[in-house]
């Protein structure tokens, strides 16, 4: 028997191939380049090339590569979010690692590999690619969070992230196996058509598979009650890593979650996962905000805040409508700029000998470094959802989608939560603008706009927060084509 040779249509995978190839290039360059900072710029070039390729593929190409990968508008939009996050993460890291004396080549290669995993997840049309992308991203992130070998909390973060992350992967894989059993395929579209074409309304095996998959996703995007690793990992990991993974890993998880729910488990199981998603969203945002209220450490505070924001994003998914998906996509873009920006500021404020920043470190920041404080003010206001910043529109879109989907209670709860979150975000602002600096001010004095990569990252994130907040129509038009 002669096997049918596959026709290799690699077009939808071009962004992935560029990033993977570039990661290998960075890895090899690390052996010969003494000046590790240059590797950061080399990786940045790769990210920009991949972004150009992604834009060139717009508005998407049909499913190909043995029906295993797809580059539709949604995948390409997520690619852009990942690449923006990657670029911000690289800019932050180039300077942060220098200051912390951690400048090493493998950091940039690992970051690129992790980015490749995220892109694979967004392009996945088969559970095999989903799992492959998930692991590629996660394993690179485990190592990245432990990249500060001198700092015990970094190693501890890596250990916790690794154990809980691979624990979640095992559940995820078991869910994949059961889903495969129920549908006889791992292709998302085929699973969807098989499950809805059956005479039996609900296959218990598929339902169990779905639950286990949700547990796995819950861990990866940090939904309550699967969130216990998040604050520790975000606090312990080097801040430049936190800036990258708090956005990237979450966005990638939601990218795949959306696709799995919408194409494999709709319409037969829609009512089931809508209920679960709505409840998880409500619990996640409430718990995240409540826990953030009592934090003194800014990285930990932002960690809990990111849990709350995962809840808001899930509101968009629970709406189970095209409006909800567009709201979710907009939210993730907004979240990327706000959160990566806030962590970038935390990088700037962090002292050389510490691995994190307390609220007291921000006291009097407005006097010492007005521009940095202004940027942080923007991020905090946007995270609360004050108009006309980007965070306002993102919340408006997901809550409106929830109301349209008869989930008004969820929208009301979301608004109440936003009010609650204003308290701790405002706490940071109060420290920066109303408190006098402590006896030994933090070291961000070296922060000079336009002269440092970190400043460029903060500026880009702040500019996007304002510009996209004033003209959200640009993104909305883009999303209408998704």
């Amino acid at each position, binding site marked *: *028997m*002669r*096997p049918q*040779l596959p026709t290799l249509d690699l077009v939808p995978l071009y962004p992935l191939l560029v990033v993977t190839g570039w990661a*290998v290039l960075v*890895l*090899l360059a*690390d*052996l010969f380049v003494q000046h590790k900072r240059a590797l950061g710029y080399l990786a940045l070039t790769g990210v920009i090339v991949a972004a150009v390729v992604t834009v060139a593929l717009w508005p998407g190409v049909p499913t190909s590569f043995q029906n295993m990968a797809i580059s539709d508008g949604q995948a390409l939009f997520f690619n852009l979010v990942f690449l923006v996050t990657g670029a911000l993460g690289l800019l932050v890291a180039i300077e942060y690692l220098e200051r912390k004396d951690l400048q090493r080549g493998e950091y940039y290669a690992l970051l690129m590999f992790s980015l490749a995993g995220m892109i694979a997840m967004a392009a996945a049309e088969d559970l095999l690619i989903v799992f492959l992308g998930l692991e590629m991203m996660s394993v690179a992130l485990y190592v990245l969070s432990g990249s500060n070998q001198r700092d015990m909390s970094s190693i501890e973060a890596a250990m916790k992230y690794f154990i809980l992350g691979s624990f979640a992967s095992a559940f995820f894989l078991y869910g994949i196996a059961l889903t495969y059993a129920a549908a006889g395929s791992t292709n998302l579209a085929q699973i969807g058509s098989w499950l809805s074409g059956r005479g039996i309304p609900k296959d218990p095996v598929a339902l169990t598979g779905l639950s286990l998959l949700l547990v796995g996703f819950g861990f990866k995007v940090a939904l309550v009650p699967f969130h216990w690793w998040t604050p520790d990992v975000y606090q312990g990991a080097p801040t430049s890593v936190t800036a990258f993974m708090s956005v990237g890993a979450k966005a990638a998880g939601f990218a795949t979650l959306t696709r799995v729910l919408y194409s494999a488990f709709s319409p037969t199981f829609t009512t089931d996962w809508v209920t679960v998603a709505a409840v998880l969203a409500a619990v996640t945002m409430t718990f995240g905000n409540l826990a953030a209220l009592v934090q003194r450490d800014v990285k930990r505070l932002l960690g809990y805040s990111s849990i709350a924001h995962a809840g808001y994003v899930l509101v968009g998914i629970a709406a189970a409508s095209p409006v909800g998906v567009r709201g979710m996509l907009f939210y993730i873009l907004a979240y990327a700029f706000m959160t990566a920006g806030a962590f970038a500021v935390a990088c700037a404020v962090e002292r050389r000998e510490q691995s994190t920043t307390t609220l007291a470190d921000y006291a009097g920041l407005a006097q010492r470094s007005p521009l940095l404080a202004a940027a942080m003010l923007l991020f905090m206001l946007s995270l609360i959802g004050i108009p006309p910043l980007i965070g306002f529109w993102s919340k408006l879109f997901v809550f409106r989608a929830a109301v349209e989907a008869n989930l008004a209670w969820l929208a009301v709860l979301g608004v109440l939560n936003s009010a609650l979150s204003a308290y701790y975000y405002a706490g940071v602002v109060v420290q920066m603008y109303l408190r006098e600096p402590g006896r030994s001010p933090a070291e961000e004095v070296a922060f000079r706009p336009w002269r440092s990569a970190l400043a460029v990252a903060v500026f880009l994130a702040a500019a996007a927060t304002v510009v996209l907040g004033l003209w959200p129509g640009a993104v909305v038009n883009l999303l209408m084509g998704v």
Partner: protein
Amino acid sequence: MLIEFIPVLVLFALATAIAVIALVLPAFLGPRRPSRAKIETYESGKLPYGDARYKVPIGYYKIALLFVIFDLEVIFFYPWAVVLRQLHVFGLIEMGIFTALLVVGYVYEWKKGGFEME
């Protein structure tokens, strides 16, 4: 249908029985004259030394985990080898790419001093 597995069961029973006989019978039948050389642990002819439960230098773990990675990549060669003839040049090129990526990892490991004992 499970009846087909009866021979396996018989094999298990026979193997266990023979092992038990070989261990128990000599204890009753054979003479017993222990000496120092006889009760010593048999280490394939080498003279045993030290305790079996001593701490291994951590460098060994590094070698072990490198081994795990490169060893398990071989699993992708097996299915490829089965259909190699049908795949022709296409399969060869694909496996070439795969191997090249492995070699990149190997070279990286080597140049970074991953194979040096500390």
